[in-house]
């Protein structure tokens, strides 16, 4: 295995990592955040190391369940469990987003826990992102970002100048380009990186200072150039869903003659925030547009058509054979999305397997069986198609 990949997997497999610790030694404050609608660039420009909150290393939900219930999302319960266990005591602050009904309550519950003397950073913020894509929402989102900036300034004296923001956007733009290169290597005929490895990479780069992330990515790209991480006969999969942070889960899928070559995941293509054609010169306005119009998730109500087109474009470009769409239990948003994607995939003749699971929740046996059966089904369909095409050619 590539040495960089090994290092990356270690970073992805723990809450803290040496890069983060080094940054903290240098007195750089770490700001935890939930969700892809929190602009990392803005936090970076304010002098923070943005850190995407995760449940990695979770051993249970006992503490989390003092606030949440068995009918809530297991990612949220596990992550909050980690919070209450003091795993995140290194954070200078945290930003919660109105992502869904489960995750938005972290803001309420964390504040309550803080009052009771449970582990919590000094400052907690709530960022509200619109649920629609349109120009008036853009204005509103920018206002909310300004409110957040003001909050950071009031709490930490962290002022963000346009110049600093522009500089941060450039650094993140570089990360964006490097990740795009990785995506290209992943979707080539024989992928240079597996789906499980890719997830580790994306988890790692959102847990370290961006400067380190860029250097890790550069080295990784150099190392895996020409690598063959799968076989040309493997079924090529696209993985779709929300919170997924267990590389071992993807590895379980890839135990089959299959490899994930494309995705639409939170730790995946939704981390990509390409510059928009009609973005303003002013950095904050440009950043707002990038974040509002970046590949969306089902929390955005009026964007299914655009989302679905982007998804099937990525599917076609990557030469994928089938889709596995996943949701965590009790997630209305992804439940509804899979309902729609199933219908759309059927209309296009694309095989789609819907999976439901709990974060870090076991159930491997059942998942293994279902995936195996699905891969066989796709293989057979592909072989039949190939035979038919050969027959046509021969005649």
């Amino acid at each position, binding site marked *: 295995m590539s040495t960089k990949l090994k290092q990356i997997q270690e970073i992805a497999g723990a809450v803290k990592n040496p890069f983060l610790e080094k940054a903290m030694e240098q007195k750089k404050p770490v700001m935890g955040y939930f969700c892809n609608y929190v602009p990392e660039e803005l936090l970076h420009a304010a002098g923070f190391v943005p850190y995407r909150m995760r449940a990695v290393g979770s051993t249970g939900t006992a503490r989390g369940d*003092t*606030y*949440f*219930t068995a*009918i*809530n*999302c297991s990612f*949220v319960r596990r992550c909050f469990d980690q919070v209450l266990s003091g795993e995140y005591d290194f954070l200078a602050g945290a930003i919660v987003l*109105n992502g*869904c*009904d*489960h995750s*938005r*309550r972290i*803001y*309420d*519950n964390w504040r*309550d826990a803080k009052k009771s003397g449970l582990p919590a950073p000094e400052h907690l913020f*709530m960022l*509200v992102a*619109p*649920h*629609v894509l*349109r120009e*008036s*929402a853009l204005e*509103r989102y920018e*206002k909310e970002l300004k409110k957040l900036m003001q909050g950071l300034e009031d709490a930490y004296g962290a002022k963000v100048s346009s110049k600093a923001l522009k500089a941060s956007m450039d650094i993140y733009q570089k990360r964006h380009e490097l990740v795009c290169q990785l995506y290209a290597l992943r979707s080539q005929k024989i992928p240079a990186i597996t789906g499980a490895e890719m997830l580790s990479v994306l988890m790692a780069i959102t847990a370290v200072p961006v400067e380190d992330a860029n250097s890790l990515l550069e080295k990784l790209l150099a190392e895996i150039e020409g690598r063959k991480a799968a076989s040309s006969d493997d079924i090529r999969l696209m993985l779709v869903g929300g919170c997924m942070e267990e590389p071992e889960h993807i590895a379980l899928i890839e135990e089959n003659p299959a490899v994930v070559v494309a995705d639409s995941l939170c730790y995946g293509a939704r981390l990509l925030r390409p510059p928009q054609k009609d973005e303003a010169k002013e950095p904050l306005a440009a950043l707002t547009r990038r974040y509002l119009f970046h590949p969306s998730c*089902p*929390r955005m*109500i*009026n964007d*299914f058509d655009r989302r679905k087109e982007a998804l099937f474009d990525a599917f076609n470009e990557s030469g994928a054979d089938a889709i596995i769409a996943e*949701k965590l*239990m*009790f*997630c*209305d*948003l992804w*439940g*509804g*999305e*899979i*309902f*729609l994607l*199933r*219908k759309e995939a059927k209309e296009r003749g694309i095989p789609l397997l819907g999976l439901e699971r709990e974060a870090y929740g076991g159930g491997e046996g059942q998942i293994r069986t279902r995936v195996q059966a699905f891969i066989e089904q796709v293989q057979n369909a592909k072989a039949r198609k190939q035979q038919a095409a050969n027959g046509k050619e021969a005649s």
Partner: protein
Amino acid sequence: MSEAAIEEYGISKKALRLLKAARPLYKYPNAVYWIRKLLGDPLLLKENNWNKDYRFAYLLTGGTSFSPEDNRAVGILLEDLYQYLEAYVNPSGPKKPMIWSEWNLSNEILRAFDVNAYIPETLAVLGHLGGTDAALKIIEEAENAGLPPEYCSAAKCAVGGYLLKESPRPDAILTSSHPCDSVVSSYQALENLTDAPMFVMDTPYWKDEDSYLYYADQIYELIEFLEKVTGQKMDWEKLRQVCRTVNATNAYLQEISEMCRAVPAPASSLHLLFHWLGRMACFGSPSGEQYAKIMHTNAKKRLDQGKGYLKEEKVRVIWYDVPVVFEILHPWMEKEFGAVVVADFIGRIQQFQIDTSTNQNMIRDLAKTHMSVTMARQCHGPAEFYTQELNRLIEEYSPDCFIFVRHQGCKGGWAAMKLIRDQCQKSGLPALFLSTDIFDRRVASSQLIREQVANFFRSNKLA
């Protein structure tokens, strides 16, 4: 289910037949009162094959507890519901655009256009008028089609109703980002299935001037959208009139809500709950105002006479959650335990008055009222929107206990469970968390629910 097997509006037609039969009766509210008395609660409180088609209507309209005067108001609202169903089941006259509107939106704007409004989730309530199994049939249709089981049963009814041909084809759909993910998600499904243009109100998280202005700006966008899809111009004078009606209605209902602070309470939250059903279907109608006015007069009279809605009020309940619609418990709790729900989550009104002096003020205040309707008011935004209101009720309504419904749809409520429980504990009052659902009777049978309530009252020596 195969296409051929589906009868268009099968359930709605049944509901319509029931309303048609009830309409003439309600011209004689005294007679209705005596018929109810004679048929009696014992026959109707428990479901059997004989009564299952109209038991829900009986319970929703108060059982034997509603006085003849209250029945007069009920008759008015039933007429509204009848007209609402009739408009899409048996349309007559020139065709009007059919606009769907999500159940937590207020429809003043729609009334200012010449359109028919349809609320997809009403099927979850009105479906029960088609027999106690009707709503279940709709829910199962949605689940069989692949809709996530964890959705709110109201959302399943909205989608299932369309699949079962219970809903008219929409020319446009209006929805919002409140109050929960079920709404956010199910309307994406409805948009996709119906292929109708959809406008979404992006409800702000906070309630401050800036948020109201953002919402108000969207009302202007909504008007533009409606003008485009209907080819009509909005009638501002009509809107003004509707807003005046809404103001009057809300003022009456709000006062009923406030009067319930008195011991004994001169009204039950069932009066308000029934209006919630009416306002969902016929928001801003003159009949809604009439209903509210009569109920208000009756409650005020009882209050002035120092009388309660119940002859003997023994337990004052705060029902701070969704009701169990498939098994309206109020008449039973009243009769068995002398328990009256003095404040609730859905029926209770806490509203702003709309300033109709200028168009601009009207839209600004409409934004405030939209963000204060039931569910939107409490479920959207930080947990304080929920807990602070609950706190106020505890302080002002002299409750003896709480009842909550652990409806699986409301994930935001579940996620704030500790904060809610803490508040109950602080009050020192007993709380029952009923394990059931708002519309889906599969989660817990009527009998089980009643047992839970009865045990709760008894074990806490409330009855």
